[in-house]
């Protein structure tokens, strides 16, 4: 199928679309490919590999290539209450799930309107919804912070979630509007003319058709919230602690091992989300293609 497909080789194989187009590998072509793939593996892998080693390093002085003493001190620290890692993990998870649900509730109808309907002022609506990508969220967040202080929404889960929703909406809508546009309304109309009611149409026709794209959009929304630092710091007032806030102080040098271990806790759920959704990433090309339609 495609390069995006990450199924194991023994899974059902689909016709290879590009097989005939790409040149039969010449010597130069093959070497270019080898160099490119090696660069990908090294460039992607090295920072993560470094984090793994550091998280188990007890003593690692310059210029030793590997730690002279290994240990799980950093991991013991991560597991302790004083590191607040679990509190951060729990808050980050609650927050990202809440933001994803909110994005689906407000984003799905909007994406459908933009993907399947033409109406007066459509381009204005599109521009407005894309604004949080173009105008720095940080700038608006400072103003929102002062509004939220009056509304007593600072230092609350809901207040932080509302602010995370702002950068999430344009990405969610880009992806889902593209998915809706790609899929059209013909099937739904057929189902309706055959006597299906609205709930049946959504459950048996719409949802299966958009599910791959919806998963990709939800993954992006989850990860946007998961990675937020400065908006959480500002609206959460430092008392609502998420993983980025736990990690940040260690990045300025206090302890490399602790920074590495917390980083790995921070990245693990994200990688799990990718593994769960990477098949869908390749399945519906209109989803990722949505980012190409800004």
């Amino acid at each position, binding site marked *: 199928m*495609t*390069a*995006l497909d*990450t199924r*194991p*080789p023994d899974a059902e194989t689909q016709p290879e679309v*590009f097989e005939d187009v*790409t*040149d039969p*590998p010449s010597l130069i072509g093959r070497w*270019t490919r080898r160099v*490119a*793939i090696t660069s*990908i593996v090294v460039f*992607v892998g*090295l920072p*993560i590999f470094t984090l793994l080693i550091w998280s188990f390093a007890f003593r690692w002085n310059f*210029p030793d*290539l590997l730690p002279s003493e290994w240990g799980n001190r950093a991991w013991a620290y991560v597991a302790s209450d004083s590191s607040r890692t679990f509190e951060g993990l729990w808050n980050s998870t609650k927050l990202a799930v809440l933001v994803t649900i909110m994005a689906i509730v*407000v*984003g799905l*109808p909007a994406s459908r309107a*933009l993907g399947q*309907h033409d109406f007066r002022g459509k381009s204005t609506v599109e521009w407005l*919804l894309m*604004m949080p990508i173009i*105008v*720095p969220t*940080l*700038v*608006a*967040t*400072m*103003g*929102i*912070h002062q509004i939220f202080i009056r509304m007593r929404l600072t230092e609350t889960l809901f207040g932080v979630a*509302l602010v995370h*929703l702002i950068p999430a909406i*344009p990405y969610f809508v880009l992806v889902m509007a593209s998915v809706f546009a790609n899929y059209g309304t013909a099937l739904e109309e057929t189902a309706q003319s055959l006597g299906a009611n609205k709930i049946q149409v959504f459950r048996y026709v719409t949802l299966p058709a958009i599910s791959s794209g919806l998963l990709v959009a939800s993954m992006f929304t989850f*990860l946007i919230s998961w990675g937020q*630092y*400065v908006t959480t710091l500002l609206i959460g007032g430092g008392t609502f602690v998420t993983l*980025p806030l736990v990690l*940040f102080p260690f*990045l*300025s040098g206090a302890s*490399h091992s602790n*920074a590495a271990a917390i*980083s790995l806790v*921070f990245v693990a759920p*994200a*990688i799990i989300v*990718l593994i769960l959704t990477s098949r869908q990433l390749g399945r519906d*090309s*209109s989803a990722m*293609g949505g*980012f*190409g*339609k*800004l």
Partner: protein
Amino acid sequence: MKDILRLPFMLGPALGIVVLLFGGGLVVGLGQSLGYFPAIGLRDFTFEHYASVLTDSNFLRSLWLTFRIATVTTILSSVIAVGLALVLRQKFAGSRLSSFIFQIPLPVPHLVAASGIILLITQSGLIARFGTAVGILDTPADFPALVFDRAGIAIILTFLWKEVPFIGLVVLAILQSVGPQFEEQARTLGANARQRFFSVLLPLIMPGVLSTSIIVFAFTFANYEIPLLLGTRFPATLPVIAFRGYQDPDLALRPEAMAVSIVLAVVAVLLLVAYRRLARYAVK
């Protein structure tokens, strides 16, 4: 017809969040930058904060630094991503595994990327250790300072690590949805690989590259935590200066911090609109 009546309800909630919340935040910020800050007794409309910001040579140095980092990141990540997408769409032994590895940075938070890059490229980082082991370096100081450096190399590397897969995956998705027929036609008509790339593939993927590069530029231009962690304290990038000013306990400094923020936002919008226009024109 019924659908048309439903449209306001479908678009309302999303527009409400963006216009009222996001827009409201911007209006509050704009008001303060213009001297409207009742909390500390300021009610008089003034441009003095903008004047003092725009005539400050340090501000202009920071603006240039911010612009340079975002531009270099955007150009490099677009070019590298297109090149790698062309390799990754081929089928070869290990192509699926390579594609999976290519995707890994996509979900990794920027702070974790920064964390890994720091441990890798500081003067006592893994690469410097390796250089010492093979005898190229004697002391950490022999390794070039890539973190907290004037050129912002660590910042750019961190952004590249994150953004190359993003642009690359969008390009791959476009190539997949377009399919091979145009290239096959071009080949039948006698076009060589170079002609097929510049006359067939590039025009097809350009809109996608353009739109993702807008996202990347906007993101890197306005990012706060990466330049804060990996950059010099002076000059710092504009988002760092703006947030530092906002957090200052002295509220009298806030209007100027908001002026920096608004200038940051206006410059971002102007640059991106101009870039989009220019690129659309060039593509046509």
